[in-house]
């Protein structure tokens, strides 16, 4: 459906006549006509806005994600540790209810979780893209032994279950920073998470970019640049890179939602961020200890993540359609 509308818009001559447009402008026009894409983009942007504005929301709302309201006011929680009020304790004071046992405010905890998870996932995605693009271009442009060696590294990284790598090397990376018997500060967990997911996550981008560069390297305009004596830096940044933005953007939109769920998965398994740091996976992990009796707490982070990942995937598809209307899905 999106393909057809995109093609129509690009082939039908504009009423104003012979205005020239850059490929970027054309892509933007195609994207604006794609209703699914625009709605998904709004949802995705809303998540980022809510995440960034979490402290502001908490301030206006008058609560924070760390205070254990349930322990301060025992009437909020029942004897079994579950919220005393029905539906996870949702009422006019606690809009999304409170969590069992500790009685923290779910409303602010959720926004802070989204904030932390999105910040970490975005950081990982940007860094992994940079590494992947750099290695991919190096391997593709230089070729020869460098290409062979980098190719084998990527093969090995891609051939094995990434999740196991992430899980298995967490203690090693943590041990790099922290002594044997010390408690691990949260900031270091974040740093090692980012490091780990970047080190094991760039390979797919690298492989793809390498292939693209291999194809571009033989084109006439690159040959021409070489003949005129352009430096490798100029060829890479001025000749190759502008033609690589489409695959880079597409890979980025694929990687970010994957990193969000991977990071949350690690926290869920207990090897990523730990309670009480607000995080999507921490929140889901905590909720799964209680869902048999009260599933309300699980629904907020769970549904939020499904909506976010779905919207981001749809957005990714629309971005691909807009940038590269020839590809058929």
């Amino acid at each position, binding site marked *: 459906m999106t393909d057809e509308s995109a093609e129509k818009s690009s082939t039908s001559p504009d009423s104003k006549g012979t205005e020239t447009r850059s490929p970027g402008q054309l892509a933007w026009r195609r994207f604006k006509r794609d209703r699914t894409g625009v709605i998904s983009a709004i949802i995705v942007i809303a998540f980022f806005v809510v995440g960034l504005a979490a402290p502001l929301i908490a301030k206006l709302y008058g609560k924070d994600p760390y205070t254990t309201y349930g322990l301060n006011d025992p009437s909020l929680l029942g004897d079994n540790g579950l919220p005393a009020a029905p539906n996870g304790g949702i009422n006019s004071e606690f809009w999304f209810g409170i969590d069992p046992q500790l009685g923290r405010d779910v409303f602010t905890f959720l926004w802070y979780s989204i904030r932390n998870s999105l910040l970490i996932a975005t950081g990982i995605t940007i860094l992994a893209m940079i590494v992947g693009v750099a290695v991919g271009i190096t391997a593709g442009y230089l070729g020869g032994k460098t290409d062979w060696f980098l190719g084998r590294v990527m093969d090995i990284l891609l*051939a094995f279950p990434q999740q196991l790598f992430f899980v298995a090397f967490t203690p090693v990376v943590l041990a*790099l920073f922290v002594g044997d018997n010390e408690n691990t500060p949260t900031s270091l967990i974040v740093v090692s998470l980012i490091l780990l997911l970047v080190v094991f996550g760039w390979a797919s981008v690298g492989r793809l970019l390498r292939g693209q560069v291999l194809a571009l390297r033989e084109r006439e305009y690159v040959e021409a640049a070489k003949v005129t004596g352009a430096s490798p830096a100029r060829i890479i940044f001025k000749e190759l890179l502008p033609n690589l933005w489409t695959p880079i953007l597409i890979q980025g939109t694929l990687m970010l939602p994957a990193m969000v769920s991977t990071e949350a998965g690690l926290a869920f*398994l207990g090897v990523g961020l730990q309670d009480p740091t607000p995080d999507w996976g921490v929140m889901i992990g905590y909720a799964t200890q209680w869902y048999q009796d009260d599933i309300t707490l699980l629904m907020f982070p769970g549904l939020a993540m499904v909506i976010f990942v779905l919207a981001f995937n749809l957005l990714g598809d629309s971005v691909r359609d807009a940038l590269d209307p020839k590809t058929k899905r």
Partner: protein
Amino acid sequence: MLRFLVRRFLGAAITLLIISAVTFMLFYAVPHDPARMACGKVCTPDTLELIRRNMGIDESLPLQYWHWLSGIFVGRDYTGIGRCDAPCLGYSFVNHESVLATVQDRFPTTASLALGSSVVFLIFGIGAGMLAAVKQGKAVDKIASSASLIASSMQIYFVGPVALYLLVYTTHILDQPSYTPFTENPAAWFSGLLVPWLVLALIWTANYTRMTRSQLVETLSEDYVRTARAKGLSRRTVFFRFAWRGAMGPIVTIFGIDMGVLLGGAMITEKTFSLQGLGMLAVKSVINNDLPMLLGVMIVTAAFVVFANIIVDAVYALIDPRIRLA
């Protein structure tokens, strides 16, 4: 075929050697005190001393690796613990058990999970994908495509508990997940794993629907399919005798790799349904800092992935006669 197998097995051995060496180095070279790490969170001085002696901390790292590696082929003696027969993957000082024994103990759970769910996702995934490709652009195609997009955006750690809540805890339609060995009670084995199979399959089905659809759409537009149609064969014959062969090649490849991954343990699924398979073993080893165990699980998983790749390439050639093993 023989040459192919010999070459691939050699390649696999080299890959495993590299993986194990790199993992070993990372595990034992980086941490401050590997013995302290291998000892786990609750560590008595006696155990620590025992580990120190058995790990050969004073030896150089390559020598330690050599001891580990040769243990796989000729076994290994642990002072104060006893002999670990070949193939010896090491000894877990946290669990006080040989790594191989624990892996063997956990493997049936993981294998049952992988086999059962792959049956479900292959049937539904390939079925839906074929239907979508044949009815391209029609309502069936759109429903299958959007359903797979939604399913692939779901996470097991959310869908799993919701499914359990709806199907098990509130309505009691299905049994609570548990693992009973197949040889002991096939009915209990089946009913205990049904929910995990369905949930795990839901997410994987989406991938296979999308892949099958795009592969088939591509194959159906190829020349040989047109030729077959042009010489008067029915759509049905063309589809079942020629088209699916061309389309299934890549699917088999992906399936082999996925199977290798699944046999290494589906960590999140096992955790969600409290199944004690290889995945949970890996997670617990990380939490307990049980490095020997973790190393063992990683090597076993790596071996599954590597050998799955070889099998896949061999099967690929059987399905698609255009592929030659060289």
